[in-house]
């Protein structure tokens, strides 16, 4: 990260970062660290991401039930994927889930984050409590909500998970409950970085709290919002445990998102070739989407929010 710090130090407000940089850097030889430093990261990534990804890609051209050797079948799995009516449904549900989750999580964590950046009484305690869900595992959270939603003995009785909209909203809510704390933290950090002078100037000009929020806070959080959104969207695409535990893709196949479709093909029907085709499709779709987002939002260029200051 030292490469990002270097250009910024030329600007005024960041001079207080000076001592910290000297502490962590190697003294005189500031600048890029040795190339060998990336080795652990690259090895980890290669072993746990690239190798399995390549294997899954190869497996998508075979038929394999988990026992014995995979049998090459050419493009059969890919043809099946294109013809599968469940893929279309699955894509629709996945996109819908991603969009609704993004909207829900962004609005709530933005408001909470901006609030938590302030200096109110009780803020620290409440923020700590809000953060708790993020510390639990997704499986534990899903099991907890499954018990809460039990139609006969739960807190919220009724057929929540048995209806299409109920099951869908339950997944959105449980996902939000888990990840909003994390995104709140991002927004809190972002909001803390906004210089007070901006608010002071706005106050002198007669801007009220709402005007300050829309004209200063929101534009200043642009980069935070982009990063948080990309994480949310990529996260939603790979959302899995909650669906498996809460709805098993049901009612019928109405909440069978792509990762669940992949799981079902692999670990219910033992058709690992087809499951790999779905997985490869998912990799390509998720990568394309995140690249597109980065391009569209100009996040790659990372323009400073303090230009002209």
């Amino acid at each position, binding site marked *: 990260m030292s490469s990002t710090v270097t250009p910024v130090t030329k600007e005024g407000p960041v001079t207080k970062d000076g001592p910290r940089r000297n502490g962590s850097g190697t003294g005189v030889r500031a600048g890029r660290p040795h190339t060998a430093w990336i080795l652990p990261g690259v090895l980890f990534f290669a072993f746990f991401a690239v190798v399995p990804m390549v294997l899954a890609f190869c497996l998508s051209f075979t038929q394999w039930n988990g026992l014995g050797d995979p049998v090459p079948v050419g493009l059969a799995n890919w043809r099946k994927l294109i013809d599968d009516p469940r893929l279309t449904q699955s894509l629709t549900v996945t996109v819908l889930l991603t969009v609704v989750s993004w909207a829900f999580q962004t609005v709530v964590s933005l408001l909470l984050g901006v609030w938590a950046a302030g200096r109110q009484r009780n803020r620290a305690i409440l923020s700590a409590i809000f953060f708790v869900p993020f510390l639990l595992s997704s499986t534990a959270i899903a099991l907890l909500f499954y018990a809460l939603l*039990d139609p006969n003995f739960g807190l919220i009785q009724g057929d929540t998970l048995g209806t299409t909209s109920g099951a869908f909203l339950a997944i959105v809510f449980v996902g939000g409950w888990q990840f909003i704390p994390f995104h709140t933290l991002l927004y809190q950090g972002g909001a803390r970085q906004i210089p007070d002078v901006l608010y002071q100037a706005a106050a002198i000009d007669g801007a009220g709290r709402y005007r300050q929020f829309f004209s200063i806070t929101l534009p200043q959080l642009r980069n935070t919002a982009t990063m948080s959104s990309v994480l949310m969207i990529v996260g939603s695409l790979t959302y899995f445990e909650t669906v498996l535990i809460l709805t098993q893709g049901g009612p019928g196949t109405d909440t069978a998102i792509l990762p669940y479709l992949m799981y079902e093909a692999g670990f219910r*029907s033992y058709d690992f070739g087809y499951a790999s085709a779905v997985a490869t499709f998912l990799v390509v779709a998720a990568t394309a989407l995140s690249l597109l987002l980065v391009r569209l939002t100009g996040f790659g260029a990372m323009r400073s929010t303090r230009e002209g200051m």
Partner: protein
Amino acid sequence: MESYSRRWFLGVGATTLISAAGLTACGSGSGSGGSGSGSGTITAMVYGDDAVKIQVKAAERFNASAAARRTGGKVKLEKVPASDYPAKLRTAMGSPNAPDVFFNWGGGSIKAYKEANQLVDLTDVIESDPVLKDGFLPSVLDSGALDGRRYGIPMRGMQPVILFYNKTIFDEHKLQPPTTWDQLLDINAKLKKANITPFALGGADTWTELMWLEYLVDRIGGPEVFERIKNGDASGWGDPAVLKAAETVKQLIDDGAFGKGFSSVSYNNGGAPAVFARGKAAMHLMGSWEYSTQLGKFPDFAKKHLGWCAFPRYEGGSGDIRNVVGNPTNYWSVNARTSNRDAAIAFLKDCASEEYAKDLIDNGDIPTTSNAAKLLDASPNPEFARFQYEMVQQAPAFTLSWDQAVDPSWQSPMLTEINKLFVGKSSPAQFVSALKGLK
């Protein structure tokens, strides 16, 4: 900076993705002892429900026995939670950490393992050993067979599907257990008027919904209908009995016979048995293991209020009321790669012992051993024991649960279609045409 961030996001996407697929596989494969380790210990993978205590006792007994010393093997049980069992077994069997001995349902559930040459053919072992050959009911041994070869030793009780009812509720409302479908509908109407859900149903686990169709198709069209489907003929789903059964189920659902929230209720996590035991629902169509489940979780209910009867006759249908659906039993099979085959087979022989049968009886199960009949009186509920034993003994046809009987590639789509029918996502006609399209 630009390329750095791009790569990073690519990494985030890819890592999360792969961890979803990769970790599932890794997680499932771990934990079983090495079969190729050469040490004497053998691992037995078993379905971890309430009845597993019988296998725990059997393993303890075997480990202290002369047979264990002679073969130099000790058994280590690996209990797998119910709903994960088939997937975990499959992953383990495809890995170097495969169990030596494993629990299964016979029939379709072991077909893939047989085709991959992963099973020890037990036919000759059984034939040459009087303890095994005469120890079990022949029909039950045959049910676990594939193409006339035997790969499994029966290790649990008989599991016919039975219509359980709450005797106390029935008495209060002056009801008799139904013997015909019209009587069942009449009871249904009366219970609803009294604000009691007529039937408990754990619809979050589709196999519980499956039981209704299994019995209705049998009662309406006879066992021949599914026999044809089981043999791989998808056009068999076009039999009028299947459509009629689906329509009948649909009427029950629309009528509120299972209550409103049934598709959110699970059997595996204890939801449906609790609804039934606490008197919120009056009847429960379930495998005979319901008795041991209730005895474990709600002993008072199991002993005082639990009643049972056969699934009623359907007016105008051709199926015999004595026909049974369900699982004949569960089996132990032996992995062909086991390092200690003698110990594995010696362990399986314990299933034919009187101690093993007594443990089953104590748990409320009915053993499939030849000596079962004389032990029935020792059951915690001899009346239920005799009912179940005679039900199976006298059944003109015993249809294996559809999800275990069909080819594994049909299992998942079939269950999905059944679930869609129950939650109203497809009509009976759509249900039939989707199943006819199975390949």
